[in-house]
């Protein structure tokens, strides 16, 4: 692995408001060959779950970064988003139901808010008007390894709004 493969990454973590939590979160980064660039500790900004969001910038090779994210998760640190083009996996789902009545943009932002996904594009089809059943195709980028988590979020959001989700089938090696 040459030095030129080192990239910078931003990881967003959610920490419990307890002494030592930040150190516990940073150790796996150093231990796995990451070079810390900056830490933005948003002490005043508590998440709805009562956690404190922390943004960490670091440099690492893609392989090491993979190890870092894994080590963070193994250490029980809540990794909300690990930003990098390299690190995303495309995920497409269909949503079916009263998408307009249930506020599609709110549905999408809830998916983005609580998952590891960013939404790339949305196609809506409401052939019988917006009062009737409509369908949407939602393309997301999700952190590799977080596909299941993201789908769980989509399911939960859809469930609350009475929407159906058609999930992609993860086929082993099939195209």
């Amino acid at each position, binding site marked *: 692995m040459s030095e030129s493969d080192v990239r910078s990454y931003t990881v967003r973590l959610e920490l419990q408001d307890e002494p030592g939590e930040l150190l516990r979160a940073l150790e796996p980064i150093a231990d796995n060959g990451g070079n810390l660039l900056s830490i933005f500790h948003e002490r005043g900004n508590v998440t709805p779950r009562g956690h404190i969001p922390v943004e960490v910038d670091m440099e690492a090779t893609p392989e090491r970064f993979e190890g870092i994210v894994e080590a963070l998760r193994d250490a029980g640190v809540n990794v909300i988003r690990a930003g990098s083009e390299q690190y995303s996996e495309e995920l497409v789902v269909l949503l*079916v139901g009263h998408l307009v009545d249930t506020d599609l943009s709110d549905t999408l932002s809830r998916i983005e808010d609580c998952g590891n996904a960013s939404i790339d594009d949305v196609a809506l089809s409401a052939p019988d008007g917006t009062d009737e059943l409509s369908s949407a195709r939602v393309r997301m980028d999700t952190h590799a390894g977080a596909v299941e988590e993201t789908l769980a979020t989509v399911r939960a959001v859809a469930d609350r709004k009475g929407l159906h989700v058609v999930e992609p089938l993860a*086929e082993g090696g099939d195209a």
Partner: protein
Amino acid sequence: MKLAVMGAGAVGRSVAKLAGEYGHTVTALADSSGAVVDADGIDVAAVLARKRGSGTVGDAEVATALDAPYDALVEATPTTLSDAQPGFGHVEAALERDRHVVLANKGPVAERYDEVRALAADSRGEVLFEAAVAGAIPTLSTIDSLGPERVRAVRGVLNGTANFVLSRMAAEGLDYEHVLAEAQDLGVAEADPSFDVEGTDAALKCVILANVLYDGGYTLADAEVEGIRSIPGSALELAAEDGRTVRLIGEVSDGSVRVGPRLVPENGTLAVTGTTNIVQLETEHAGQLNISGAGAGGPETASAVLADVGRLPPVD
């Protein structure tokens, strides 16, 4: 082998008709209201003609078929849920007589698998049920030759009616109700299609697969099941714009059983069209195996029944 055939629907009738060609003798045939028994072999053509005329195969009590001289009982009565009767009772009666059982009926091995296994353990008879999973497709015999412990996952399209509806909707841009009506006209869907379109039938097959892969313990209650009624034509169009389509997929992996509409690549292996079924096995050493073919139909399913009969050792 001497066969007692319980059930005279499409599968039972086809088994009776084809048995002779496979070197077997049908000594008893029963439907829901009557039975015919002859230790030397019934006249299948005459009995089926009688059923077409009078609605039943014979005047004898259904139970007399269970007491008839036979080596293997073919259980082809309609699949029922929970207590899986009358199929389960027929299985029990045959095993208690130390006779073999070949099932086309999914109920007993989906809903009461552990009990069937316990009965078989105390019997000299064996229980086989290839025909209960995806009709003509040799799913269970393939798993058996691979070894269930070397099959990591099974996925597939296991219901022809639901697949016909989804693939027609996608191809013609039509809505569910329209295509369902067409399927009913063609005889692809039953008047009450709920068993197929709500995913129950595919789920029962997956539950049977889970019982085979994980050595029992599963019933329909353990499956997560969603049907296709909620899929509008517009959803299929959006999928097609993206090179994908929707299929009702059954999945058995990591100890869980799940059936529901899923997005698959439009030209992918699992996107079979019409009433075709496909079974995809993810194996330890043999990579991925795909077997597609007829998942239903009288002669097709009967061929799986008779293949099972051929695997059975002689009685006594």
